[in-house]
């Protein structure tokens, strides 16, 4: 927690977690985003997590209309938005009420007290006459700073001489709050003011709005300085990140850039067909702007049309990709079977959300792994890979395309809502250093063309329409070896089933081996978004004098070649997952190791402490 014992004007802290919350109308996402830029510029490492309301824009002041944004920034290398919030800004009672539980004991809470009136208090279910701001208990547990932000903002922005709209003024409250926080953490607001001025002044052509926002930030900043609210300011020194040029990136942004990069590296257009669905829609939105990078997007009438049109595009020689979330993947499975049979490249992006059924669209989960592995009729193996951090979404996107082309098969690319929307600093890669991806198409060599004649890796030739002399027909009925003609022969079916499976397994030779970090009897094996929590948790365990080894799987089918050896080298294997144990079941059945699971299926990421504790307990249970 932030302690103010010292009398010094400014206290040094290793890391701080801040949360902005208020009504979805209060612009909390924007505020958080600006603050993230501020800490980024100051050279901190950081990790953010938005907390969207399930509703588009629920009636003002209601609990289900609350929007939140959490950021942890640090002088060290961090990977999570933080378990408990050290300082929170609450723009209204609903935000205060529904986010209080995230704040650590003794944490700072800065509220806009003007909003804590009868009506608003009632709206979020505080009983008549009670105002939490006056609650003894709360005030002793937290350091609640009441700031009349609404009034102060107006006072500082409305000037006799000039005529401004009150609405515009009130919209600047969040900037006032930003100013306070910037001051509290000893941050320079000038760069932010410049950005905002440029955006509103130049881009939007609204100099007055620019002016108001800038003034609001400054007002907030000076308020912090002059008011005696805070005994002290805090400082978080820059992190010692690897030198280089950085940008902030979210998983969905990274995925978009990764696909654009893949397109250039292959030298083929990408055809991205999708049907909107939370939390995958932003991928469609992002790609739709990249027509000048060889990307064509198609918003289909449904998920089935999306995946099928993508297969059609692959048949025609482009890179067919479709993107969705769990319920959409469920609809695409029959078509994935078709692509498996036609042996055409196809990437299926699945940004997972909490299920089953419609579930909790705005919450995150890792519960589509087994659907991705087995959710098709018949024996239908496909490649399954997963990204493990926002930045990693970029590189795994390129991998997805590479493997789909390498084996002429579907690749399911698993991301998660918590990766897609979370942001972290990202060292910008030199794209020229990324290897190109080679694809060849057969030409007519006079010989009769055999569409299912495989190369040494089991890959069949990709002959595309327009190529003279290679006319052929593909389909979903079992194919005869070599010719690809429809074939009902029993032995042939057994053979083709084997070939389709071996082709996938064979990719083990084209993917990196699994890296293990640390020496210990105990291995923490993870996949996907849990990487950050695991890394941080084992740091915590080290402090407790507990040592574990870790390994993180980006490739789930096929597994890295050395996975079996890695498992064999450890007496105890612990698998933390945001589901009820899906990777665990795969590991147990393939390697017969008694892997233990740490499972959280509540629609949120692990808290680091919770995870560390559970690992510790598990290690105590049963001697390794």
């Amino acid at each position: 927690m932030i302690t103010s014992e010292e009398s010094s004007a400014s206290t040094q802290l290793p890391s701080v977690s801040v949360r902005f919350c208020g009504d979805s109308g209060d612009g909390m996402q924007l505020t958080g985003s600006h603050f993230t830029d501020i800490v980024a510029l100051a050279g901190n490492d950081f990790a953010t997590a938005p907390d969207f309301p399930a509703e588009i824009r629920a009636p003002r002041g209601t609990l289900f209309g609350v929007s939140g944004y959490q950021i942890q920034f640090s002088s060290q290398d961090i990977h999570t938005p933080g378990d408990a919030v050290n300082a929170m800004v609450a723009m209204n009672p609903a935000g205060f009420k529904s986010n209080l539980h995230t704040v650590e004991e003794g944490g700072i809470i800065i509220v806009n007290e003007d909003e804590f009136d009868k009506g608003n208090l009632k709206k979020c279910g505080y009983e008549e006459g009670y105002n939490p701001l006056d609650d003894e208990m709360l005030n002793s547990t937290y350091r609640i700073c009441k700031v009349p932000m609404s009034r102060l903002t107006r006072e500082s922005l409305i000037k006799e001489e000039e005529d401004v709209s009150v609405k515009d003024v009130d919209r600047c409250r969040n900037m006032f709050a930003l100013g306070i926080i910037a001051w509290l953490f000893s941050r320079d607001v000038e760069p932010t003011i410049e950005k905002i001025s440029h955006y509103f002044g130049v881009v939007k052509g609204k100099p007055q709005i620019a002016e108001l926002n800038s003034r609001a930030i400054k007002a907030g900043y000076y308020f912090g300085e002059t008011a005696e609210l805070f005994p002290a300011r805090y400082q978080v020194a820059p992190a010692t990140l690897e030198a280089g040029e950085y940008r902030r990136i979210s998983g969905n942004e990274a995925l978009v850039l990764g696909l654009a990069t893949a397109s250039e590296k292959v030298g083929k257009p990408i055809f991205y067909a999708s049907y909107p669905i939370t939390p995958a829609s932003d991928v469609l939105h992002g790609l739709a702007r990249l027509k000048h990078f060889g990307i064509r997007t198609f918003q289909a009438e449904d998920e089935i049309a999306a995946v099928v049109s993508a297969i059609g595009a692959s048949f025609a020689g482009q890179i067919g990709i479709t993107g969705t979330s769990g319920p959409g993947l469920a609809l695409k499975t029959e078509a994935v079977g078709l692509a498996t049979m036609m042996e055409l490249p196809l990437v299926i992006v699945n940004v997972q959300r909490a299920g089953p059924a419609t579930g909790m669209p705005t919450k995150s989960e890792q519960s589509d792994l087994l659907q991705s592995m087995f959710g098709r009729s018949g024996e239908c193996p496909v490649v399954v890979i997963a990204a493990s951090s926002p930045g990693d979404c970029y590189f795994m996107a390129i991998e997805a395309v590479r493997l789909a082309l390498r084996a002429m098969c579907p690749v399911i690319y698993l991301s998660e809502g918590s990766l897609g929307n979370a942001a972290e600093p990202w060292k910008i890669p030199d794209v020229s250093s990324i290897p190109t991806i080679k694809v060849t198409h057969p030409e007519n060599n006079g010989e009769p063309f055999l569409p299912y004649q495989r190369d040494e890796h089991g890959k069949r030739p990709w002959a595309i329409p327009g190529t003279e002399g290679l006319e052929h027909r593909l389909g979903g009925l079992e194919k005869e070896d070599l010719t690809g003609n429809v074939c009902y022969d029993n032995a042939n079916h057994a053979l083709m089933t084997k070939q389709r499976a071996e082709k996938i397994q064979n990719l083990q030779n084209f993917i990196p081996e699994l890296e293990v970090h640390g020496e210990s009897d105990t291995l923490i094996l993870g996949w996907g978004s849990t990487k950050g929590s695991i890394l941080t948790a084992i740091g915590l365990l080290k402090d407790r004098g507990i040592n574990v080894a870790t390994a993180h799987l980006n490739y789930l089918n096929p597994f890295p070649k050395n996975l079996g050896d890695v498992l064999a080298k450890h007496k105890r294997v612990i698998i933390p997952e945001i589901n009820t144990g899906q990777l665990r079941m795969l590991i147990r059945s393939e390697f017969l190791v008694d892997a233990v699971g740490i499972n959280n299926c509540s629609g949120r990421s692990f808290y680091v402490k919770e995870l560390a504790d559970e690992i510790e307990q598990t290690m105590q249970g049963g001697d390794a």
Partner: protein
Amino acid sequence: MSDVTLPEYKAKDFATDQDVRWCPGCGDYAVLTAMKKVCAGLGVRRENLVFVSGIGCAARFPYYMNTYGAHTIHGRSPAFATGIKLANPDLTVFVVSGDGDLLSIGGNHTIHALRRNMDINIVLLNNKIYGLTKGQYSPTSEVGKVTKSTPYGSLDAPLNPLAIAVASGCTYIARTLDVDVKSMTSLLDRGAKHKGTSFVEVYQDCNVFNHKAWFYASQKDTRPDNTLMLEHGKPMIFGKDSNRGIRRVGEKNEVVELGGDITEDDLLIHDEGNLENAFQLSQMFSPEFPEPMGVLYCNPDQPTYNDLLHEQVDDVIEKLDDKTLQSLVTGNNTWTVK
């Protein structure tokens, strides 16, 4: 891909080495014959032709055409064809499938392909039955149809393929008979050349599970009085001795006998360009009316989705392609760590 050295094709050049596996007497054979003729005369190189289908007897079609082809999954062929055409607009893409495939499980993809005016050619082989699954009623089966799945007769009113095409904004709508290979050929040919989605319904006899379903309209003796061959700009005349016609009175069409005080001038003149007429024609059913054959509607002027997409892509590229991939990946909000 206009090509000066286009080979001289014959219909048989489009036959594959695969045995045709339709039942003897199946109406699909006629469509195959017509289609090979069309392809031979289309002026398109064989490797630029693609046939796409769903699942069903009709959907076996691509296996019998020596072009590129895809036998996809049930009901999804319009979506597959859309992907092909958007990826490579130089290809001439046909969708050939059945009434169950394109109107039951695939109905939604069909209407969305039509409304987008994708430049693809959809051929509906309508035998009013599910053939491949051995004879259940289909969405085009008449009410009261007794089949394996409806032993006491079906209850639902059939879908009207042409009315759906009209309502979906299809820009080329035609109908033909499996027994009339000649006009089928010309209708398919014109449809293939039409810029935009062409939709051709073929009255197709399923010799095994729904034999004679169309005989009321397809046979020598029944055809003249139960079908009306449409010709743009011509009066709507039909009948054994071309002695009958269609006239509009008030808000309704009616059948009249020519002669006496009724002359050709009293008859409706077919106007391919009028959507409302097309809808009226789609509502003419035997025995009250002859059933229209030929081109009900044609609008060559509406832009196709694929053209619009590629124009848009080109525009954007024109405007923006100075941007490098590196600049895209870098973005415009960076900071440097020393």
